[in-house]
């Protein structure tokens, strides 16, 4: 029993498996999966595998890049971009640790009020949300509040 699992895993990891022709896909499912159970198991399995991979990679990425990427970046980039980097990262650390202040909460509430009352399409909400997300670094909030919103409404 375990033999099969290991062989299967082995095959998944080595690349010499001869790909079966998928032409027979439908016929195969007609004969072997009359109730869709196999499709459900395989389908949900694959969806979970792929999204788990995304989860794993992007759980690891932040740590990885905060050490390595920065160094690689700083070796590549000129002094000009150093300023940019700070501009990006300064707000990051405090906002991760700090609790939501009342002020930020108000900004969220306002943004949410906005989208409840007038915004009804995909873009607007996404933008609203991205604005909300940016207000976590408080000094950028005013720019987005004043400059972006009117432009998106037109």
């Amino acid at each position: 029993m375990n033999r099969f699992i290991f062989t299967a895993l082995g095959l998944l990891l080595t690349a010499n498996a001869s790909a079966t022709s998928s032409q027979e896909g439908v016929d195969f499912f007609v004969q072997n999966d009359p109730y869709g159970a196999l499709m459900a198991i395989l389908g949900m399995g694959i969806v979970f595998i792929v999204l788990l991979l995304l989860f794993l990679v992007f759980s690891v990425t932040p740590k990885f890049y905060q050490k390595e990427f920065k160094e690689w970046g700083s070796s590549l980039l000129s002094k000009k971009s150093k300023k940019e980097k700070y501009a990006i990262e300064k707000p990051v650390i405090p906002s991760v640790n700090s609790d939501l202040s009342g002020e930020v909460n108000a900004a969220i509430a306002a943004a949410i009020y906005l989208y409840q009352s007038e915004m009804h399409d995909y873009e607007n909400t996404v933008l609203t949300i991205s604005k909300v997300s940016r207000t976590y670094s408080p000094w950028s909030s005013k720019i987005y509040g004043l400059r972006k919103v009117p432009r998106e409404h037109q």
Partner: protein
Amino acid sequence: MGLGIFEFIYSQLIEFFGYTSFAHVDWRHLVMICVGLFFISLAIVKHFEPLLLIPIGFGILLGNIPFDLSANLNIGIYEEGSVLNMLYQGVERGFYPPLIFLGIGAMTDFSSLLSKPKLVLLGAAAQFGIFAAYSSALFLGFAPEEAGAIAIIGGADGPTAIFLSSKLAPEFIGPIAIAAYSYMALVPVIQPPVMRLLTTPKERLIRMKPPRAVPKQEKILFPIAGLLLTTFIMPTSLPLLGMLFFGNLLKESGVTNRLAETARSSLIDIVTIFLGLTVGASTQGDVFITPDSMLIFGLGAASFVIATFSGVLFAKLMNLFASEGNKINPLIGNAGVSAVPDSARVSQHVGLEYDKTNHLLMHAMAANVSGVIGSAIAAGILLSFLT
């Protein structure tokens, strides 16, 4: 001679009458016209997904103005050479959905997902609605390809549904698209009861840590790594996910703003207009109102409910393994079905009902955009296995 003229005019009036819609209309056209008017008023009065329902609703009107098909007038959506038919090619060949995904990629901020990658799994869990619908459709006697196309309604994503059904079961594009978009518009009606049913009062008050600000580099990395990770495993999701991640790179790279701006404005708007109008117009009463269509609508509703179930229950399951302070509020589980951004808004609304200061929107958005990726992968799986 006076009589001759009147005989002549009489015959002319008959001839003219044969050209009007009154000579060709039947009850099914009138039913569909009412549906179209209902969609339009839903959009205007209730503000449910107006960008979809107005074009689809008006398209339904256009498609249900009957005329003499035998006259080769080239005006109907199913007559080659008509302008509606030309615009419909983009639906029939699955050409519009990837362009919509390009625009969506260029307007989506994946920060919420990057900030809490584990919420990605909610977007996986909710895809169970798709596979449950597949089983049910098989049970109701649909062929596997048809069942696959119908099942994707449970993905709660219009472009994905149109794309897959154009590949697997082109004859069902109309009802599948209408079902998908209708239920997406009705998400605020369908989901809350399920969410209340499955959650305890205590769970509904769970507060989640605010998302962290995500550095620019991570946002740039996401579309690139996302593309390679997802499409190497399931290459058939390339048309949708490739475009989604391409749009997102245009947005996040910081050096192609003008391309991102066009992708998320003119380009997606033009495609939305054409897609909505022709999907609506494809619902000519005489070919649309069939028992199969009714079954498809039923299966679609069921799959939406099941998807919501799975999302919420999986959130509760994840909480079993999460330490205190890292619990997930299961009210965001529903957002895994996608239906961006309505289902995330539903999470926020229902959450606020129980605690006026607990904003779930950002967290729900993470599940929401994962749901988009999840159902594009599910579409790729169905396409792979059923072609």
